[in-house]
């Protein structure tokens, strides 16, 4: 499946496997979680205050638009977290508690 992001170079890295909403995806070693998810899909999460899906904005840790969670409720800033084998990410709506426990 084509995702939102397009890889232009550096594609000969070792594969890393993770799941997003229960589906298996393959990323590359050294990918950020954001690139792993958006090379395979179109969004990271749903907006809490609007109808739209969100896919991050600044890629430099400034906007906080890219927080995602794993199955255990751990939160990750997807643009500044390196992908790891076996992660299980959920893009389903979060409660608006980012300020309390991101």
């Amino acid at each position, binding site marked *: 499946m*084509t995702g*939102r*992001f*397009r*890889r*232009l*170079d*550096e*594609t000969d*890295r*070792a594969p890393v496997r993770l799941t997003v909403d229960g589906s298996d995806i393959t990323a*590359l*070693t*050294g*990918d*950020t979680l954001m*690139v792993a998810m958006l*090379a395979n899909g*179109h*969004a990271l999460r749903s*907006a*809490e*205050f*609007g*109808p*739209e*899906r*969100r*896919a*991050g*904005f*600044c*890629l*430099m*840790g*400034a*906007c*906080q*638009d890219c927080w995602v969670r794993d199955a255990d409720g751990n939160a990750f800033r997807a*643009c*500044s977290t*390196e992908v790891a084998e076996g992660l299980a990410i959920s893009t389903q709506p979060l409660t608006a508690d*980012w*300020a*309390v*426990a*991101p």
Partner: protein
Amino acid sequence: MNGQVVIVGAGPAGVRAAEALVKAGVLPVVIDEGRRSGGQIYRRQPDHFKRSYDTLYGSEAHRAAAVHRAFDALLPHIDYRPETLVWNVAEGHVWATRAGETEAIPYDRLIVCSGATDRLAPVPGWQLAGCYSLGGSQVALKAQACSIGGAVVFMGTGPLLYLVASQYVKAGANVVAVLDTSPFAGRVKALPKLAEQPDLLWQGMKLTLALKRAGVTVLSGMTPAEITGDPETGVSGVTIRTASGTLRHFECDAVAMGWHLRPETQIADLARASFAFDKATRQWLPEIDGDGRAHVPGLYLAGDGAKVLGARSAEVTGELAALAALADMGVAVDKDRCRHLRAERVRYVRFAQGLAEAFPWPHQFVADTADSTVVCRCEGVTAATLRASVSEAYATETNRAKAFSRVGMGRCQGRYCGNASAEIVAALRGEPVECAGRLRGQAPVKPIPVGTARTDV
């Protein structure tokens, strides 16, 4: 004589500051949120990536390599804390957090080299998935070898707009258009000041030519009308009004937008620097002397975090700030070197004035933001709600407007709505933008986990 010096930021400014201190025998703590040193422009790619310096940094490859080498050589002498966020400054300590653990690090002198982020103007639809900040689109390419989409429109103004668009073309991405709000005539008028850095001026002209030759539509003096798309699938296109007044639509699945940069001043603010309004950029900037001293003793500011003057200048102001700190500690410094650096800085200031004239912030466009447009991306707050805080709740400046409307209170803490909010509030009150004040920096400067444990007690 000695005392602890803490440097925040390991971009070109922070690196050159650290180098000057180490040379004088003063060993600083250097804290940076990034995994690897280098800052924004000289951002290093992760391990496992193999692109060359030339591919990554183009004409600035030798400068990038020099800054990286300089920092690597300092590592045995400094206390370097990567992946560490400074989230507060209080009572002579910086509060830094790494991997869930927080520490209060004492300092006698603090050199803040915190860099800049993109300045954004709200455009209808910019909350859709597929809209990215211009700098973000460059990070995708530099740090991850990705394009933000299959068909990308670049929109905004400033030299970075053309630079990133041509980096995308060179890397093989599909660039649909480069749409600039600045009129072409302004660039011609600013030429004498831009000639202060002839190679950068020449580079800029070459980039525009190369884009046109690659078949990319390049338009100046346009006005954004709408980013079209669907809440579920994201961006589908960009509609603009051309300089001659006709509507044009460009189909795309990604938009990179930015109107030059804004300094990251929260740390300086928490360290109690004073601020003054800068008419040229319509921004509030921390007040420093020609060497980077803030009005608070022991506080120094350098690089784009003090005033956006670019990467070359960041190396100059970083070194200057460190020399100022050393002089204030009673260490003898090379006066000729200081004079040379000050003269360099003056040239960069003139060049930056030229850029501000050539690529102005479109404040009238921002002041005219339609009521239905989202101003705060974080919480989906519209211009209508922001205006109601002025007209119904009598907010007179942006901090009050923030309390009533929540514009500036969301997760980005005003980084991406603060400039626009001030323009909208001031215009509605019929006052100059400086009367709307500035959003005050607040701790934590970025969200930190609550469970964070202290390790210094």
